[in-house]
């Protein structure tokens, strides 16, 4: 219990450091006024506007002001498009979460069974093939893979939509519902229109595949290595010496313990997934956090960037925290 609390409290310095880092970085690389108006106003006019907006004050002052704001739970309003940061976070955060969720499902469905097969057929041709597949999945940049997928499934075969989270009709319908969750699948189910659900799912197929394949490659390799390692453990031989069948050895004895390091790594991979999601989001018009973040970065909208980074940091920290708890559930040796 105590461990959980300490673990949980550790989220705070992580987020704090990130926010500070981002604050400093963002002030170094220019302000939103220059970004927006630099092409048409004179230097004097720009200076005047910066003065008015308060960006000319000492950094420390601005920093503490910002910290104060955050402590009050006020993340501010974006500078470039005048939206409350919290609203930005909710809208795009839910999109990213949805995408990452789909991606993880694909990754699990592909990566884990194939990893187990590769481990069982170790060093024979299915293993070699699967490993090559895994490396290729990882080696192909998401945007390239996305391009190919779109080309095949949308342009040539025409069976799947090219981009977006849902067709515009569905999106309008969903935006009209009362307190939407922002996660389209859930919202569509709540609306209760089957065609909406189908539409949302159709749109999810390609992005989920692109992101999922990348991650599946990582999972496959991870599962394989860990399974092989676990299959070499003494208790496997012990169970074998009791006459336990090979299938059961893999399914029961090796699987669970092998899962522990995998789950841990998945936690660490969340950051990577969110990062990988930026490209997926861009390729498939999936308006999520990462996608939006690159936008705000170009606009030098530091308020928005800081907010998003803080949220990402919290997501990563919380995921790792949850992972620890999941590991505790799988592994009886870890109890807090």
């Amino acid at each position: 219990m105590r461990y959980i609390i300490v673990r949980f409290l550790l989220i705070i310095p992580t987020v704090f450091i990130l926010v500070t880092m981002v604050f400093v970085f963002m002030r170094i690389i220019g302000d939103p006024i220059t970004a927006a108006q630099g092409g048409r106003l004179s230097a004097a006019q720009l200076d005047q506007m910066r003065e008015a907006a308060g960006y000319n004050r000492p950094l420390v002052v601005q920093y503490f002001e910002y910290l104060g704001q955050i402590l009050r739970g006020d993340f501010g309003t974006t500078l470039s498009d005048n939206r409350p940061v919290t609203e930005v976070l909710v809208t795009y955060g839910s999109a990213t979460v949805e995408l990452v969720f789909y991606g993880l499902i694909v990754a699990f469905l592909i990566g884990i069974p194939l990893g187990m097969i590769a481990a069982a057929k170790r060093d024979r041709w299915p293993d070699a093939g699967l490993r090559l597949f895994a490396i290729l999945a990882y080696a192909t940049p998401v945007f390239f893979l996305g391009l190919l997928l779109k080309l095949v499934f949308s342009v040539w075969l025409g069976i799947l939509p090219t981009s977006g989270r849902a067709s515009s009709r569905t999106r309008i319908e969903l935006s009209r519902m009362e307190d939407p969750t922002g996660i389209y699948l859930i919202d569509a189910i709540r609306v209760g229109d089957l065609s909406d659900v189908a539409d949302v799912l159709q749109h999810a197929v390609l992005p989920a595949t692109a992101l999922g394949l990348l991650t599946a490659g990582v999972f496959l390799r991870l599962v394989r290595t860990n399974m092989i390692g676990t299959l070499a453990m003494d208790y496997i031989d012990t169970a074998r010496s009791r006459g336990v069948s090979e299938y059961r050895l893999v399914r029961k004895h090796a699987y669970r313990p092998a899962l522990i390091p995998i789950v841990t790594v998945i936690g660490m991979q969340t950051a990577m997934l969110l990062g990988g999601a930026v490209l997926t989001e861009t390729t498939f018009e999936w308006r999520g956090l990462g996608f939006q973040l690159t936008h705000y970065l170009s606009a030098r909208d530091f308020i928005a960037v800081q907010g998003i980074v803080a949220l990402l940091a919290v997501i990563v920290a919380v995921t790792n925290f949850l992972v620890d708890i999941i590991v505790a559930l799988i592994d009886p040796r870890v109890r807090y």
Partner: protein
Amino acid sequence: MTPQSSAHQTQSTETNAVELRQLNIRFDTDGGEVSAVNGISLTVQPGEITAIVGESGSGKTVTARSLLGLLPDNARTDGAVVVDGHEVTALSKAQLRALRGRNAAMVFQEPSTALNPVYPVGWQIAEGLRAHRRISRKEARAEAVEILRQVGIPEPEKRVGHYPHQFSGGQKQRVVIAMALVLRPSVIIADEPTTALDVTVQAEILDLLRRCRDKLGAAIVLITHNMGVVADLADTVAVMYRGDLVEQAPVEKIFAEPEHDYTRRLLGAVLRLGEGKERRRSTTQIAEAGAEGHGDDQATEPGPAVEAEDLRITYPGGLGRPDFTAVQGVSLTVPAGRVLGLVGESGSGKSTIGRAVAGLTPVAGGALRVLGRSVVGAKERQLKKLRRDLGFVFQDPASSFNPLLTIGQCLAEPLVVSGEAGSANAARPRVAELLDAVQLPAAFADRFPHELSGGQRQRASLARALALRPKLVIADEPTSALDVSVQAAVLELFQSLQREFGFAAIFITHDLAVVDLVSDQVAVLRSGQLVEHGPVDDVLSAPQDPYTQRLLASVPVPDPAEQRSRREALSSPGN
């Protein structure tokens, strides 16, 4: 269950529990093919306990595993392996599976890794049952509880749902044995079942194994390198040497009149409690002479090498956990030129004390004076001076040498660091002297640590400890990683060096026989506390503390007849 159709010539009416004929086992390795077992033949009768002994790497484990067809992928066998009437090498996968557990079961060396950490022990026991019999979950559980009770796990109804990490090492080994027993196999193969355990626990496990045989009539193949265990348990003994079976005979015969040369060497190297007495008498005289010699050089009579008073050592507890007190209220002294043997079970704080004396672990309370200097709260710089006069010999000779440096470089390190030599090259003559002192050829200076045998490495380790002519040597289980025969040689070297250089020493070990051999004084530790401290003869022959008494009693004597009588003497009033 298909009866073996092919009859073999040397067969009596009764089928053997185990029969090996011309068994060859080879491995493919990085270095090419390795022959692990060369055409051995061996039989074990039902209800018989056969011990396989031999030095490390002689093929014991491999032989045992071949009985269940559990060899790794890179192994190839030929010859016949007949277990409980089945020719193992000819079985299909399914038949093999049926054989495992039912006809023959295995108990592995390391109980902590032999249990799957993520399932309750009851589940793991039941799994074996369900693999062989149609049986409901409930019945399986009931049987698991029953078998746990039989192997002596208290409150089996509750413990059946516990996970492996919730058991102590000895209990885990009992569970492993329970898992093997529950299927009532004809043969139990136990590969060093007690090596990882303390002597007191070892005694209980051996007792349990004996009961298995007595009650179930199972044949037991016991693998061990401990002759005490052999004497305690075995009916017949098979001696292996470099993949060959050099001798198989009833236990009394092996101990009384070993035939093979190797067997004799093996037995000769075995240490016995009480053996050290006479040797010590002469040693003391020489040591005193040595101390006097030193006294000539020094102006003042040296005080005790180590003086500890009410010593307390703690390890920091990490986030949210209290500090862990490893050593509490220990007071002891090591006179100059004398050897203190520090014994106790695993985790009792032996190493901790040794490390504290060397200034590697900070002392939390009490007083600790080493060679006249207090090390409590001492700064690293002050410790450095002290360390010139200290030598440290580590348990594992392999890991105490930087694998990237040659032995010569390793030995030169202390000389270079202390400024005695400008560079490793300049130190070469001195390195050669040191190697010579530990009876290694000077050419070994150019070898890498992994190119030496364990015994040679431990010699080199001694040489390094002596490089700066220390006044105090701390040896932390310096021989526990070695085979008995090698151990004897290293111990002998240690003694002669001690006599020659006259240093004081703290000799840490869990083996009472070793203490008996090398030390003048002995300190017995238990859970960080000192339970007994005194001259070695007094403590070992007339222990005062009940714990020391139990410890001594648990040590099996490498003599079957004596061990039997001791056992009977112990069990009649106790049990």
